[in-house]
């Protein structure tokens, strides 16, 4: 995950006004190119490649330029630089909403986007195409003989009673630097009364703070961490095979479900060209092969009463609230004081 927080983004803005900082870039040429689709994404090339190849099978005359950047870079590029892209894919729901709200996205509508559930689109501009739950990743070895916590209160109880296992072996996002971590934490603070208590307990146990899911999962696999809280389920799932010592636990009381979303920047050549990729992504649920290859769970309609604890984070201006400068300062201050009280 390449989230960096909004504050970090502001700092970045001050420092690096100029070209977009890409982490990876790959060009998918075709024999007889008729058009080119420029994609700016936060997902690794290796994760997303199957989708691009499948897209090119359906659109054999489209060259795809796939650039990867952190979510804050994606935001900066589109918001400040006016970077020319035909489609922007990001896991930072709040930043995607901000782009659309502030008028930097084009509207697009088609049968495919109409078929998406209402909670998966906003304003005909932001289209979710995956739903990725946050999970607890535990080290089987470390939790040998200990009941697996299924809820946050159970987790708090366990952390309190077994400091011997957990001291310095809890991992979670550093919400100051990780956009995703900040999003999950703020959603947690809205959805569960135990959030601040849990943060305090983790702080007391010298929790280690991470920028990204990948590192956290690796450390749980190595046994350096006993548990990692609020890890992206899709990443954990894809590491499960080569990281044998870990177990994925989905909480019973409440699970934040992050929606990876696509939008068409105002710099796109044409909304209809880009629309073909949006349509492809919106109908990802019809391609279980791609879902399996990428480990990105496609958006499927929620059935009533099915897993009521899995709540997709709502796409909409509500996400702007925690991007508010002051609200963010206040939140971070509380979080830091909970985390760092020793």
């Amino acid at each position: 995950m390449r989230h960096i927080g909004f504050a970090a983004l502001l700092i970045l803005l001050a420092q690096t006004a100029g070209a977009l900082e890409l982490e990876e870039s790959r060009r998918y040429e075709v024999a007889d190119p008729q058009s080119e689709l420029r994609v700016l994404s936060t997902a690794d090339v290796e994760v997303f490649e199957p989708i691009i190849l499948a897209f090119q099978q359906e659109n054999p005359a489209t060259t795809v330029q796939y650039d990867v950047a952190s979510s804050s870079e994606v935001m900066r590029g589109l918001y400040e630089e006016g970077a020319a892209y035909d489609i922007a894919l990001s896991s930072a729901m709040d930043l995607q909403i901000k782009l659309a709200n502030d008028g930097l996205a084009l509207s697009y509508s088609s049968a495919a986007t109409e078929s998406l559930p209402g909670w998966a689109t906003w304003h005909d501009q932001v289209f979710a195409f995956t739903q990725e739950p946050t999970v607890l990743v535990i080290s089987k070895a470390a939790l040998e003989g200990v009941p697996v916590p299924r809820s946050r209160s159970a987790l708090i109880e366990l952390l309190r009673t077994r400091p011997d296992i957990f001291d310095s072996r809890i991992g979670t996002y550093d919400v100051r630097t990780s956009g995703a971590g900040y999003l999950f934490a703020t959603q947690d603070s809205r959805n569960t009364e135990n959030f601040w208590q849990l943060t305090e307990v983790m702080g007391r146990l010298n929790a280690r703070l991470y920028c990204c899911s990948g590192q956290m999962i690796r450390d749980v696999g190595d046994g350096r961490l006993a548990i990692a809280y609020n890890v992206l389920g899709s990443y954990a799932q894809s590491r499960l095979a080569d990281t044998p010592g870990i177990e994925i636990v989905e909480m019973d009381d409440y699970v934040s479900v992050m929606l990876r979303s696509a939008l068409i920047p105002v710099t796109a050549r044409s909304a209809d060209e880009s629309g073909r990729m949006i349509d492809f992504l919106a109908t990802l649920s019809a391609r279980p092969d791609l879902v399996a290859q990428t480990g990105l769970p496609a958006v499927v309609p929620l059935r009533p009463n099915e897993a009521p604890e899995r709540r997709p984070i709502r796409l909409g201006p509500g996400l702007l609230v925690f991007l508010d400068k002051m609200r963010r300062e206040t939140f971070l201050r509380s979080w830091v004081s909970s985390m760092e009280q020793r």
Partner: protein
Amino acid sequence: MRSGDATGSIKRRLVVQLGLVTALLSIAFFLAVRVVAEKAATDTQDNILAASATSIVEAVYSDSGEVRLELPYSAITMLSTVSEDRVFYRVLVDGETITGYDDLPLPEGRATGIGPVFDTYPFRGEALRTVQVARTLSVQDQPRQVNVVVGQTRLGLGAISSRITTNAVAIGTAFFLVATALSFLAAQNAIAPLDRLAQVVARRGPNDLRPVTAAAPVELVPLVGGLNSFMERLRQALTRSEDLITEAAHRVRTPLATVRTQAEVIHRQTDHPASKKALREMIRAVDESSRSAGQLLDHAMVTFRSDQLETQEINAADLLRDVVDRLQPTAELKDIHLALELDDDPVTVRGDIILLQNAVRNLVDNAIKYSPADTDILIKLSGEGACQMAFIDQGRGFGEADLTQLTSRFSRGKNVDDVVGSGLGLTIADDVARAHGGALDICSNQEGPGACVTLVLPLS
């Protein structure tokens, strides 16, 4: 009957006028619905905006000399529950933006701290509805002015408004169609008494001059009254002229009868052949005059009685026999044989005996008159389909005469030569036939020379 030139139709005028009225009403309704609904929708948005801005301004607090805000989550989500509109906000303390979109313009007008100020202006490519609320916060005994501006695009409003417009158009159109259909019915209904009256008048026989008694609405009473008094005057005029004719015929016949009697007496007493011949001529002329006067009388009577027939069951054979018996002497004078050929079954008609006798007598009389001496006249009765009485003679026939003209009053054929007549006989027969719902058929004798006149009457 000829009708006057029609100048427009009342019904069409009613329908068109009512249609125009309903069209106007429909449009007025549509506009009213739109205005009211749009006002309601705008008010709703304004209320939510104001609530949002108020909850933000209430969340502003001071913390060790600094003004801070914890942007309430609900303040923003309450704006996005129904629509997917874009949302902007800005918080100012003493004119300094502390958070939010610092390029968001302030709504025009001054917030007094009492009521919110609303405005609509374009912002980032779309029309934005904004509200500003204000509050004074005391920070370390210093009053600080806090202003909150919240804005929202109007797409949701547009959607509501277009839905309302669609509904209003649909309802307006339905209203118009229903109202037009109803006004058509209403016009039809309003016209109905007029139609009824027209039918009542049209259904009348040509000589029916009784007053119209059909119930009519107040508006038609003057018309009916006018019609009735007109008919009354007409009837009186007719009666007067009939009376005159009757009186005149009577006055002519009485002295003629005296003259005839005297002439006969003298004829018997004189032996002078020339005088005898002159007297015979005189008697014949008197007879003809008397006959003409009689026919005039008959005609007047027929016209008069046709209005009010005194009907009864009549055996046609008896009727014919009776008339033939009476005219036998006249026929014998010319050596004419009257042959009666009757139907096997009795033929009965419903009619006025006096009128029918009159008609038959005139027809037999004509046959005798226009037949040469020593011929046969066949009177044939048949009850097939209708009561048909045919009078077939072997006389001169109608020749070139226009058969349709012979039944008009005082019209005589070109074949009359020396035969005297008034031109009323066929007229009387025809009138009687019509008064009974029958007809008079005039044609030439199919077998040999002569005429064939048939009186056709409906069977009872």
